């Protein structure tokens, strides 16, 4: 029988895998490189037919909790997020390691080594390990698809959440994937122990002991599941531990997969200790290839009770930061580096910028005139979204971008310290993600801040996903207690520039919380709508 093959991004392979493996609900917040998992499910006919939950959540924390609730009710669920999104979801994530799961629960986290679209390159494997949650790290699109099936089995067998860790290269790379027959969704069922999810200290202590006890079983699974492999090689001068995509970059350097060194391919954690110990016994030194931070390399030094030379990112054979690639691995293997010609000097950098006609540009033009030109640079706290590009020329208008929602709270803290003016700039989707609670703080303290909510009615930077704030920004701001006289609406277009500047000046004169809402649709979503209307 020829199996059906689909051409899928890594993200899409995970979504299709989950649909085929009987998922009942996806929960997530858009974040590059994880966004396409839920987008795919939203466009999938099969997901619609199976009535699978697939709308966006307000943030990663609410997503992880939603997925955990679905697991409590006995069904298979998945939370999706980018690596920094896991920081937002850490509270439910770490505690779900202790509560465990009922229906299969997978938390898919997409890391971004080299920071193609992120503030940092933290490695989610470390957080999975921290929470005692087993981790799957597929090295290609087919494994990503197949591992979803296995992940749900593992989750339901041990009643534990499972982390699926991918990185940008897999998330956004397309390849052929053979798909399997679909599994029916679980019937709902409550946990056998009705106090399983009650983390009162007495119960939590008991559950935590169980979780610690379970680790040896999870380690055993890592030895026998088949995802981790010991591949023998003749040349024992070096052994290689190749994790996730590191395995691909290793094999890329040998013709017909003929790597002369013994290799342990690691795609499931906790690490397969027996395989690694065998490798160390047999080889003079060990090279560790891993995407992200040197987690296995660090662990290895604690795992072994004998001296063996361990090389990798810590020892400097591989760069400490940035994603791996075939050439970096080549150099670590002791093979000569290959490179084409250097980039000619005349090639100029081409950083991203706001789209032509974007309302954020009008916002920054007005803001610069009213604040930067008058009070100098250094007064504007911003946030995560397209408007972060306001840091670059020609605007150079903002002074911070730290985490989702930090614009408001940092402006408030700076105002508390006496900074005037203290301005915050956030988008509508980021506002409902993590900005509302910060605004409440400012309202309760009557802080002297001006908050700009650049309402383009979408989650722009990730490609125009539905914003949870859609159509309700003013209501939310009012509901949080901002004085209606200081909630100012403006259509950010060129002809309104003077009016915009005047509004800012008026609110600068007011000592308290002001919210200015420049509201105009995102150029990209507008273009898509116009295009769709023409068809």
């Amino acid at each position, binding site marked *: 029988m020829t199996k059906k093959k689909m051409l899928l991004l890594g993200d899409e392979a995970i979504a299709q895998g989950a649909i085929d493996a009987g998922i009942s609900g996806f929960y997530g917040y858009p974040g590059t490189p994880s966004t396409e998992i839920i987008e795919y499910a939203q466009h999938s006919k099969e997901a619609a037919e199976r009535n699978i939950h697939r709308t966006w959540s307000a943030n990663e924390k609410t997503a992880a909790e939603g997925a955990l609730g679905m697991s409590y009710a006995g069904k298979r669920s998945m939370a999706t997020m980018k690596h920094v999104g896991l920081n937002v979801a850490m509270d439910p994530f770490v505690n779900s390691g202790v509560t465990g799961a009922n229906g299969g629960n997978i938390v898919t986290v997409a890391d971004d080594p080299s920071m193609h679209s992120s503030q940092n390159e933290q490695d989610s494997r470390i957080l999975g390990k921290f929470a005692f949650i087993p981790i799957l790290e597929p090295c290609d699109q087919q494994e990503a698809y197949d591992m979803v099936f296995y992940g749900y089995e593992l989750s339901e067998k041990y009643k534990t959440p499972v982390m699926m860790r991918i990185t940008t290269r897999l998330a956004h790379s*397309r390849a052929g994937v053979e798909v399997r027959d679909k599994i029916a969704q679980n019937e709902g069922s409550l946990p056998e122990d009705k106090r399983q999810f009650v983390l009162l200290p007495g119960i939590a202590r008991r559950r935590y002991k169980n979780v610690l006890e379970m680790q040896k079983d999870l380690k055993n699974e890592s030895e026998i599941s088949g995802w981790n492999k010991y591949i023998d090689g003749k040349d024992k001068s070096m052994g290689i531990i190749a994790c996730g995509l590191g395995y691909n970059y290793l094999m*890329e350097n040998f013709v017909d997969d003929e790597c002369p060194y013994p290799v342990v391919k690691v795609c499931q954690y906790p690490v397969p200790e027996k395989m690694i110990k065998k490798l160390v016994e047999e080889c003079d030194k060990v090279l560790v290839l891993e995407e992200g931070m040197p987690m296995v390399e660090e662990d290895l030094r604690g795992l072994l009770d004998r001296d063996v030379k361990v090389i990798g990112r810590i020892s400097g054979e591989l760069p400490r930061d940035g994603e791996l690639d075939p050439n970096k691995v080549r150099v670590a293997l002791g093979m000569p580096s290959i490179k084409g010609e250097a980039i000619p000097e005349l090639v*100029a950098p081409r950083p991203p910028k706001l789209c032509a006609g974007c309302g954020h540009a009008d916002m920054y033009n007005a803001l610069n005139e009213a604040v930067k030109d008058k009070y100098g640079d250094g007064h504007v706290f911003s946030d995560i979204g397209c408007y972060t590009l306001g840091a670059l020329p020609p605007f150079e208008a903002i002074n911070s971008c730290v985490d989702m929602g930090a614009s408001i709270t940092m402006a408030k803290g700076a105002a508390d310290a006496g900074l005037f003016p203290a301005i915050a700039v956030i988008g509508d989707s980021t506002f409902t993600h993590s900005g509302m609670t910060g605004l409440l703080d400012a309202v309760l303290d009557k802080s002297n801040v001006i908050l700009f909510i650049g309402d383009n009615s979408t989650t722009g930077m990730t490609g125009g996903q539905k914003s949870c704030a859609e159509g309700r920004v003013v209501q939310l701001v009012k509901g949080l207690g901002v004085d209606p006289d200081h909630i100012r609406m403006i259509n950010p277009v060129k002809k309104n520039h003077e009016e915009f500047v005047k509004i800012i000046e008026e609110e600068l004169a007011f000592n308290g919380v002001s919210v200015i809402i420049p509201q105009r649709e995102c150029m990209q979503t507008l273009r898509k709508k116009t295009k769709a209307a023409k068809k």
Partner: protein
Amino acid sequence: MKCDIILAGVGGQGILSIATVLGYAAVESGLYLKQAEVHGMSQRGGDVQSHFRISDKPIHSDLVPLGKADIIVSIEPMESLRYLPYLSETGYLVTNTTPFINITNYPKIEDVLAEIKKQPRHIAVDADSIAKELKNPRGMNMVIAGAASVFMDLDFELMKKSIQVIFGRKGEEIVASNIAALEAGREFSLKNK
């Protein structure tokens, strides 16, 4: 058979439609394919690239190794040069000559074209003009895809078929004009290689 390609351009120019056409033809031919794309922040008018790999054997890395690309295919001249470290000693550089200027320090176009001409194996085609002559200015991408097709071991008929599949729902006229663009690009390369 293996062919490693770096597709280059500026975010929003649509390098992915070239990848889609090539990808369809490759998969129809029963080849393995891996294609790494750029999504997210860098799409907003910044430099973008896609690593496109096809082979009759399984492919490991999603990234083309440095110095191993068989072709750089670029829809913007300066962007074609950004990826020279990937081009192999025997590789081809296929690029559009019409610049996309959205930065203030864009170099003189004559200097950019002079750099391109230094490449021993290059095709520099004014894809924008060819597409305009065909009354299909948006078919510029397909001109470039056609120009690059000469250096790939892919069935050209399958590439035409993929245009039919991909643009089919937009109507026969669009399909025909994109196939014409693809053919014009191929013809240019055959004459100038």
